[in-house]
C-alpha cells in the first residue's frame, strides 16, 4: 500500500479546548461541503483515523504529551475520536504558564503534523 507524507489535517478536522487542567482534542473526518462525497471513501477514511489515533501516536505527534496520560475515545458516529491529555494545562487556564493555556490551538498544531496517509484516501493530485 503506497502512502504519502501529508499534514494530518488534509482531510481531518480538529477542535481543541480545556477542561480544567486537562486538554481535549476532537479529530474527525471532514465532510465535503458541496455534498458530493464518495461514501465508501469517507467510511475508509474514518476507519483509518480510528485506527491511526492511539495514545502512542498522539505522544509522537505532540512530544509535549509524552509523559502524560493520553486517552483516546472513539466516536465513530461523529466520524472520529476524542483525545484527552491529562494535566497538560496544570491548574487551569488562569494558573497555567503554558503558551496557549487553554489548548485552543492544540488541534491546529496536531493537524499540521506530517503523517503517512494511504494514497487511496487522498484526493488525486492534479497532474
Amino acid at each position, binding site marked *: 500500500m503506497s502512502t504519502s507524507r501529508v499534514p494530518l489535517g488534509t482531510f481531518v478536522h480538529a477542535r481543541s*479546548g480545556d477542561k480544567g487542567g486537562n486538554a481535549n482534542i476532537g479529530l474527525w473526518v471532514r465532510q465535503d461541503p458541496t*455534498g458530493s462525497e464518495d461514501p465508501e471513501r469517507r467510511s475508509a477514511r474514518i476507519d483509518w483515523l480510528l485506527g491511526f489515533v492511539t495514545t502512542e501516536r498522539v505522544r509522537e505527534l505532540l512530544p509535549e504529551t509524552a509523559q502524560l496520560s493520553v486517552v483516546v*475515545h472513539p466516536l465513530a458516529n461523529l466520524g472520529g475520536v476524542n483525545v484527552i491529555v491529562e494535566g497538560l494545562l496544570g491548574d487551569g487556564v488562569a494558573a497555567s504558564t503554558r503558551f496557549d493555556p487553554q489548548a485552543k490551538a492544540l488541534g491546529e498544531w496536531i493537524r499540521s503534523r506530517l503523517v503517512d496517509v494511504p494514497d487511496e484516501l487522498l484526493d488525486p493530485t492534479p497532474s
Partner: protein
Amino acid sequence: MVTGRVTDASVVVGPGIWRFGWGPDDHDALAGAVAAGHVIECGTHATGGNFSGFMDLPRDARPLGFPIAELHADGSSVITKHPGTGGTVTIDTVTAQLMYEIQGPVYDNPDVRTDLRSIELSGDGRDRVRISGVTGSAPPEQLKVATNTLGGHRNQMEFVLVGLDLDAKEAWLREQMDAALADRRPAEVVWTRGPDPAADADTEEGAARRVRCVVKDPSAEVVGKAFTAAGVELALASYPGFTLTAPPGKPSPFGVYRPAYVDRNQVHERVLVDGVEIGEAS
C-alpha cells in the same frame, strides 16, 4: 429567563422541560436537549468560528451569525442561524462544537448522562443540521462543583534576542536574572522560548528569538517591581540588542480551578418568584 450559575447546556434544557413537560425520567429527550444546548452554548463556535474547515467558509467582514436550536418534543433539534449573517451551519461545524470540552463518550449534566455515541447528524437544508437519535441515562449521583481559589499572583516579561549567538545571549540573560532574583526568588519561575529564526533573515523580527519568563508567587510584591526591575535593569547591562516586547507590567492575581463533587441529596434547589417560594424541586 434569568438564573444563577447553571451548566451551559441547561440554558436550553430548562426551556425544553418547561415547553414539553419532560420529567426526570425522560432521559432521551433530556439528552437530546443537552446535545442541542452543548452545540449552541458557545455561540459562533457552531457557525464557523474557530473552525478548522474555515477555508470552505465565506470569509468576509460580516460577523458570524449566532446559532439557533429548534428543539422538538422528543429532544431532537435542528441547528440553524439567521439568514443574512456570516458563517454557515454544517455537519462539520456542529461536530466541532459537539467535540468541544468533553471528557469522553458520555457527557454528564445534572439532569442526564448523554451518550455522545448515539448522536446522529444529518443535513436539513442550507445552514440547517438535524440532531437526532440521542439517548441518555440517569444522571450521576454526584453533582459537579466548580471551585476556584486564589492561587497567587503572576507576572511575565518577554525578552527579544536577535541575530547571532542566541543560545549564549539567552544563557547569560537567565544567569543574570537568576542572580537578581536570588534574594526573593518567586515560588515558580518558568522560562520558555518561541521558534528559532532561520539564519540570514531579511527582517529584524525574522531574525529574532523571543524568550519568555513567567513568574508566580503567593506575594504580589515578589512578582511585582522586584521582578520587573530585575529585567529592566539589564537593558543596558546584558546581551547586545536587548529589548522587550512590552513595557513591564503589574502583577495580576490568578485563580486555581478544581472540580469537586457533592452528593445530589445534599443540594436543595429553591425557586423564589418575587420573594415567594414556589413548588418544590424533585
